[in-house]
């Protein structure tokens, strides 16, 4: 067991819009460990994107507000950071990859400038030119040495080599040094012809290429935590497979902790080690991905898995979940899923079931035990 790089404890977030309060995230707890991928899966409006943006405090506050809970990253509770000091936690080791790479890249800058900007910010911070809120030692965040594909400057930063850091501290880097580092990162994300790509603008790149650039940018900050919010949802399926393959390889290489948000159960199954299933702002089931998907213990997880069309027309209709995702401003009492749940009983309407570990599971190290927020987890396998 290692200590988590980032720990989310009982986090609740609400949006206040007009007359309504939308409880987007309620009581979510997560541990992110180096080299482990935690997947969050859920339908539109379950709060997964809010969670992703809340961790690096990127949510617009207001309308969003963090009700209670802690986000502990490198010894600092990010929830406690006052708003005016938020810029000081940027670039300190939480990288983000967004869904739409075209919107996330500045159309006015070439690839070179996009990536060197994030390198520059990290560099200045490492050298102490920019104040940072997050304390502790200089982020040495890859706990595992990279493989041969990661070379040169990247490796230099990974080895906590005091002498090298001292030398770097003495001067600002030149443009060509930044350029070389950008090239390193482009090679890292398996771009064959980085010299050419450097000079291109985002709109001249294909979707898959843009997402690689986004990944390169995120990694160039040398994050100890990487948050990927639907990183492949805008891509074609063959390109998605390529990018997912790349991400899996990179996660193994750089050994960063990853929070992977997706609506696609298949993508989560391919990438994650641990999965949290979100419904109406809560994690309703959590655990090792193979266990959760193979033996779901929450009726919502089961229904979600069964709704994926996996049969032919002649085999009869798809099993569709009844009803709708609830209104986050008017959540039903008790378990939010009870109006759609085949197992619902009076208790479910009165009390919110806690996310409790199931008996008799022994998770692998650094992965949450199989937990379910259902009063009747043992009846779930019997559901159709």
């Amino acid at each position, binding site marked *: 067991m290692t200590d988590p790089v980032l720990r989310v404890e009982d986090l609740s977030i609400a949006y206040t819009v007009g007359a309504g309060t939308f409880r987007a995230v309620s009581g979510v707890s997560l541990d992110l460990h180096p080299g482990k991928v935690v997947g969050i899966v859920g*339908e539109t409006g379950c709060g997964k994107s809010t969670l992703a943006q809340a961790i690096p405090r990127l949510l617009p506050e207001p309308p969003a507000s963090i009700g209670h809970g802690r986000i502990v990253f490198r010894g600092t509770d990010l929830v406690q950071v006052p708003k005016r000091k938020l810029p000081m936690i940027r670039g300190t080791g939480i990288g983000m990859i967004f869904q739409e790479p075209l919107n996330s890249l500045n159309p006015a800058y070439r690839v070179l400038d996009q990536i060197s900007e994030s390198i520059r910010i990290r560099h200045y911070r490492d050298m102490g030119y920019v104040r940072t809120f997050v304390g502790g030692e200089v982020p040495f965040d890859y706990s595992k040495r990279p493989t041969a594909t990661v070379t040169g400057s990247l490796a230099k930063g990974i080895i906590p080599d005091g002498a090298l850091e001292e030398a770097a501290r003495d001067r600002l880097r030149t443009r060509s040094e930044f350029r070389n580092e950008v090239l390193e990162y482009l090679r890292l994300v398996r771009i064959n012809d980085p010299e050419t790509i450097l000079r291109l603008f985002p709109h001249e790149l294909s979707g898959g290429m843009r997402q690689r650039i986004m990944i390169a940018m995120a990694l160039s900050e040398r994050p100890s935590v990487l948050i990927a919010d639907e990183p492949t949802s805008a891509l074609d399926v063959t390109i998605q497979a390529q990018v997912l393959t790349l991400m899996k390889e990179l996660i193994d290489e750089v050994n960063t902790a990853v929070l992977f948000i997706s609506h696609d159960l298949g993508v989560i199954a391919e990438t994650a080690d641990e999965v949290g299933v979100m419904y109406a702002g809560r994690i309703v089931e959590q655990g090792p991905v193979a266990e959760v998907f193979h033996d779901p213990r929450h009726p919502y997880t089961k229904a979600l898995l069964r709704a994926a069309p996996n049969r032919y027309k002649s085999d009869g209709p798809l099993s569709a979940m009844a009803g709708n995702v609830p209104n986050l401003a008017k959540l039903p009492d008790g378990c939010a899923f009870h109006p759609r749940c085949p197992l619902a009983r009076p208790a479910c309407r009165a009390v919110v079931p806690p996310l409790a570990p199931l008996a008799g599971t022994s998770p692998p190290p650094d992965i949450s035990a199989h937990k379910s927020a259902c009063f009747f987890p043992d009846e779930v396998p019997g559901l159709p």
Partner: protein
Amino acid sequence: MSGAGPLLEVEGLEKHFPITRSLGEVVGRAKPRAVHAVDGVSLTIRPGETVGLIGESGSGKTTLGWLVARLHAPTAGTIRFGGNDVTHLSGKALRHWRSHVQVVFQDPVGSLDPRLRVWQIIGEPIRAQTGASRTQTRARVEALLPTVGLPIDCLDQYPHEFSGGGRQRLSVARAISVDPQLMVLDEPTSALDVAVQAQILNRLVELQRERKIAYLLITHNVAAVRYVADRVAVLYLGQLVELGPVRALLEHPVHPYTKALLAAVPVPDARRRKLRYRIQGDIPSLVDPKPGCRFAPRCPFVIDRCRVEDPILRPAPGAADRLVACHRAEEVGDVPPEALLAPAPSALSPTP
């Protein structure tokens, strides 16, 4: 319209979008270039049948759907509907013909006019085709709402008051309002969550059973095609690469691209994970494509012949009802899609 013959016959359909030449190119007398969005597609749809058209972005699937619905004018080729050539219909005749072919668009937000109420949106084809009065239209829309699973008291609501699934139901209601014989479903569920997608797909299949509508289902979603389609056509860079009955094609794909596509679909089954995708390269540009098979640059089975000679769509080896456009169909036909996935090096994959 005859019941026995095909409902829709498309032959050698092409759509090239010319690219505006830059000043330099005009001065330099460069040849005008064009995006070959659809490049010689032939396809038939029988009454009441669903043809699924799978392809990725840039495959020309949406362009093909729009051509079939006559929302684009084809560059070449013919479209016959119920035995009549409709390729060059225009004006009133075209508008009238549109009652036979309706379209459900991908974007359930954008395809509904935000300033119209539900009854006006769904009633639009009714009014355009029959000239019904406002009261008649409203009554017909009211009768239509339950068939798509919407409550009748939403007649006066605006589209933004609906969820994604509700909006797509509106789109479907609009399309079936004039009893079409063919519906072009352009990515009908790609913007929806999986649970809502299942509801809509079920509804579409039921509607087809009740009303005997033929569907052209355009999608990148293999799972949706599997459930709704009777036959599947696979489109790559504007050309059909494979065509056949849904079960046969999805379970035993012959064309390397179909294999690559099926292998790339992530499955919510953690036991199959930690496999790595071996197809490299991006989807190439459609601007003035080079001769030869268009999948050749990414194909793991490529030989020299593929780079020079266009493969033609021919009966697949051993299956008369299937067509495939691959020079090496006989040799690679039996390779399973999983062969395009490689297990991760074991040292790097901590197995849970």
